[in-house]
């Protein structure tokens, strides 16, 4: 595996072999970030492809070592935000209405429990769709890419306080949406 500096140099001079290595190394990061942001496999694949092509065309990667991954995240998040904007603007809005998300069920669950769990995941996905673009970006980077708040702040070039506040807003919103979806009223329960 080539060191990052060599990878950066290779991308800058558009070396096809080095770029292929870059694609193989960062495809997971880019694809799964796009998938979490956009929610559909096809769009995530298109977005990932677009990100790689954009990097190839511009060949403008950070000059110094240690910034490549953050920069890749930033490019990916921006590409996904653009797509989300287009999606909201466009007529062919994709929804998850007919999509059932199945995750690997825990052992020993009955078919009913598996179905309930699938329903919960679907509700969660729908609730995530309701987040604003910034909330979604931060939420995806924190929960699905497992990045620290400071790393997210560096990637999105915003203060860490903003990251923290936005993440909290996102979680509270998710919570409220999920509660609304299940017709629960925790506020009523919480009056003690």
């Amino acid at each position: 595996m080539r060191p990052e500096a060599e990878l950066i140099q290779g991308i800058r001079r558009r070396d096809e072999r080095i770029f292929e290595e870059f694609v193989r190394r960062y495809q997971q990061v880019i694809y799964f970030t796009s998938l979490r942001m956009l929610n559909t496999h096809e769009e995530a694949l298109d977005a990932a492809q677009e990100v790689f092509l954009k990097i190839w065309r511009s060949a403008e990667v950070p000059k110094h070592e240690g910034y490549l991954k953050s920069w890749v995240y930033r490019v990916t998040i921006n590409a996904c935000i653009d797509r989300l904007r287009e999606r909201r603007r466009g007529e062919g809005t994709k929804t998850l209405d007919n999509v059932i998300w199945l995750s690997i069920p825990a052992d020993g669950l009955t078919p009913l429990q598996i179905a309930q769990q699938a329903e919960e995941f679907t509700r969660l996905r729908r609730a995530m769709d309701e987040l604003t673009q910034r909330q979604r970006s931060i939420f995806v980077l924190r929960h699905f890419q497992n990045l620290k708040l400071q790393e997210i702040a560096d990637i999105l070039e915003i203060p860490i306080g903003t990251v923290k506040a936005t993440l909290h807003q996102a979680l509270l919103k998710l919570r409220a949406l999920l509660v609304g979806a299940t017709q629960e009223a925790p506020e009523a329960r919480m009056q003690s």
Partner: protein
Amino acid sequence: MAYYCNDLKDRWPEYLYRELNEHEQALFAQHLRQCPACQQEEAYWKKLFSHLDVLAMDDGTDQAPPELVYRVKRQIHFYQEWSRQTYTAYRSKVAASIAACLLVGSVLWLGDRSLQKITASGPYIEAVSQSVLEDFYNPILLKLYKENGIFVSPDVRQIRLTMRPEGKPPEEKPKPSQQQTL
């Protein structure tokens, strides 16, 4: 000071991310131990976080689709092909533009030279062909007439330039009498 349910309401994310300071975290935990409603709320948050953890496991796979690398390589190939073609077309256009500029420049230069020649030499001068002069016909005529008093009479194929003698007004041809015309 003890925490109440309303104190906890908006601070769950901070508690779950362990971003509260030690004192606050302890007060939070203390309230949780005493309050069944908040215990239920904690259970709900933990369930949400565990669901998110399951989703983070990428629906059973942690590999990007294998076609992604192929698709990127194909796109890059198309892009290179397209840029090569665009570059070739661009190069031809640039070459054509340069040639056109040279042609126009040389015509202007020749035109300028012939003007100098006209003013310097005799009264009758064969000028460049009409096709070349078409675009510059009027300004040249105007310049010739205003500055040098040269009268230009265009021919079908060629332009004949007539220069009047220095200091004398252009000779006017006698008008044919009405009878002659008739």
